[in-house]
């Protein structure tokens, strides 16, 4: 725990929760179901450090990114930006927008097709108070920071004239040009060609090391999380199920879900016949009671079906939200791990 405090915490989330009400198909009038898209998630984003959030579709990882960027309002929980708590219901200020930036998944979709690249880069600068002449110079600097040289070659192009890798770099440049402290990247490489993915990952690594950015890297690809991140969080059904500093989580996973995830990664040394077989799953339905992974879990116990496990400390800076480790001490929230339900009531509003 000592090393976690060394880097400065730029953005902290405490017990962040977001529920959505959805209509249950077939019940037009009454039945609305509450989907706990993000449920009691706490994390620390520190300067010069990449935190990876790994999860499948439906794990709530994209909602988490939008909560952190404050383009979605949390149902409960709070955000602390450089030590200052931010009221959940307050309007998102321009200052917050310039401190915390989000890069979206689809590089082709996130550029307006009718505008040239300079519009995409200069608008944020203009909004955040730069003059017209300044903006162009700053936009060029931003393009250089993402290794697009010479910048003039890109500024007057239209998005459709550029490749996916270039557009994703421009997306990152757009986020960078307002000088954020925190960069949230929502699956930045999943839509890119295999051969250019590493380039974007290495770019993020460089920004983190050279400019002391705090980066949240959201992905479904656990191998890339292992490659890039100092901290890895695995999410399942809106909750953090496992967390570790370093690559411990990948090298020695403790939570059955993480184990399943890792066993599923295509790996030539792990033939298909050894594939875990969990049968038909509808990922949108999770257990309402107890551990949410219990219906799919191979090591399920009775307690899992009735009581939700807290996060247990399974190693140094390594926690696992699973009853298998109930003999271990419970982890505290300072480790960016949610406490047991109810205990966090004092910090939530």
């Amino acid at each position, binding site marked *: 725990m000592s090393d976690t405090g060394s880097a400065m915490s730029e953005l902290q989330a405490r017990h962040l929760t977001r529920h959505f009400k959805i209509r249950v*198909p077939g019940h037009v009038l009454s039945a609305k179901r509450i989907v706990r898209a993000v449920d009691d998630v706490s994390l620390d984003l520190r300067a010069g450090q990449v935190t990876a959030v790994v999860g*499948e*579709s439906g794990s709530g990882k994209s909602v988490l990114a939008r909560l952190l960027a404050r383009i979605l309002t949390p149902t409960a929980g709070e955000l602390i930006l450089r030590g200052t708590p931010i009221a959940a219901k307050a309007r998102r200020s321009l200052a917050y927008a310039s401190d915390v930036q989000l890069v979206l998944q689809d590089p082709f979709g996130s550029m307006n097709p009718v505008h040239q690249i300079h519009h995409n880069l200069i608008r944020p600068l203009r909004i955040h108070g730069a003059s017209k002449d300044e903006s162009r110079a700053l936009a060029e600097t931003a393009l250089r920071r993402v290794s697009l040289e010479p910048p003039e070659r890109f500024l007057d192009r239209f998005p459709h004239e550029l*490749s*996916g*890798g*270039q557009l994703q770099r421009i997306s990152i440049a757009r986020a960078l040009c307002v000088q954020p402290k925190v960069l949230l990247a929502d699956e930045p490489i999943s839509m890119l*060609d*295999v*051969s*250019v*993915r*590493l*380039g974007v*990952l*290495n770019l993020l*690594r460089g920004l983190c090391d050279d400019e002391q950015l705090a980066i949240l890297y959201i992905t*479904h*690809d*656990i*191998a*890339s999380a*292992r*490659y*890039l991140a100092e901290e890895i969080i695995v999410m399942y059904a809106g909750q953090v199920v496992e967390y570790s500093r370093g*690559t411990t989580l*990948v*090298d020695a996973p403790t939570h059955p879900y993480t184990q*399943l*995830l*890792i*066993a*599923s*990664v*295509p*790996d*030539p040394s*792990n*033939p*298909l*016949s050894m*594939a*875990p*077989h*969990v*049968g*038909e*799953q*509808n*990922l*949108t339905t999770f257990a309402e009671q107890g551990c949410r992974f219990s219906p799919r879990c191979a090591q399920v116990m009775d307690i899992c079906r009735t009581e939700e496990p807290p996060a247990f400390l399974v190693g140094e800076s390594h926690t696992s939200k699973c009853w298998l480790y109930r003999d271990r001490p419970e982890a505290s929230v300072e480790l960016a791990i949610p406490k047991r339900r109810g205990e966090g009531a004092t910090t939530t509003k």
Partner: protein
Amino acid sequence: MSTDALERRAAADVVAGAASPPSGSGMNERILQINDFCVDYGVDEGAVRAVDGVDLHLDRSKVLGVAGESGSGKSTLVYGFTRLLRAPALITGGTAFFNVGPASEGGPDEFIDLVTANEATLRRVRWTQISVVIQSALNALNPVVRVGSLFNQVFKAHRREMSRADRRTRAIELLELVGLNPDRLQRFPHELSGGQRQRVMIALALALDPQLVIMDEPTTALDVVTQREILGELAELRARFGFAMIFITHDLSLLVELADEIVVMYAGRLVERAGARALYDAPRHPYTLGLLNSFPPMHGERQELTGIPGAPPDLSDLPSGCAFHPRCPYAMERCAAERPPLAKLSEEGRYVACWLHVDEVHATVPVELRRAVPTTSAGEGGAT
């Protein structure tokens, strides 16, 4: 089309990499033979060559992996020889002989050229002998048709003799094959998860016992766990029914497990062809090596990987010579001037389109590109 015509045709293309098909009884093992296949988008000045002189062959019950990035022509190739491409695509050359089985009991297998086949022939062959599973099952399945009706439609179109009860029994059987509950027959596609929809697609593709199943990135849109399960099931189904498979993906490591042989495409051409394991353990083409190095590993020390510099080329403005040379760390003068042919290497069943391996005068093969293939796994697919 008779077999000797096919042999003549194939013999002419030996240099281009197509092994001549085995004669006599062994001939029956060949299911697909594609030679010198070209597809353009558009004509004249606006024409872009998306698939350029591809030679391929596939034997019964084998899995051929086609790997490549977007724009490499991997999808165009398979939708091209199945004649499913839409305008402005045009097939501009080549042949695609498909084994439709013996004309009479005990006779030699007949081959038809899909490129010259008329609509009636194609309709007869498609789905009964060649079926396709595409990437986005949500778009492929009609949202207002129940899963059960999808199966009904297929059987009604191709198996008129089946009764209502037969159709239902067979549909349930097929769903169970792909690990789905029979009550899914009553569902609409949007009520199923992505993995379930893709399973329905696979069940539909297998409905008429095809000889060849084409999988176009069937698992790309799915989560890893679901992907793993579906791939595992596919391997089982193939072992059980013995259909041949062409599997298209950008994920090489996935192919290594599943395929017997892998071809790697770049800018519309084959750059390497080898047994799956051999290709993974000892790639010969710099692009293949770069591609393999682009996947961060799950084991071992963390170290910085570089991937491949630059971006995939624009097909309408290809670099001269070898299309990969601007991104290639080993590029020589000759690479910019001349395009390397897909040449046979001295090793069994390996072909590579790279001057490093062909030009003995100017080139020394870098050590990364001449790793020995581990003897235990040479030429074997992981899925068997």
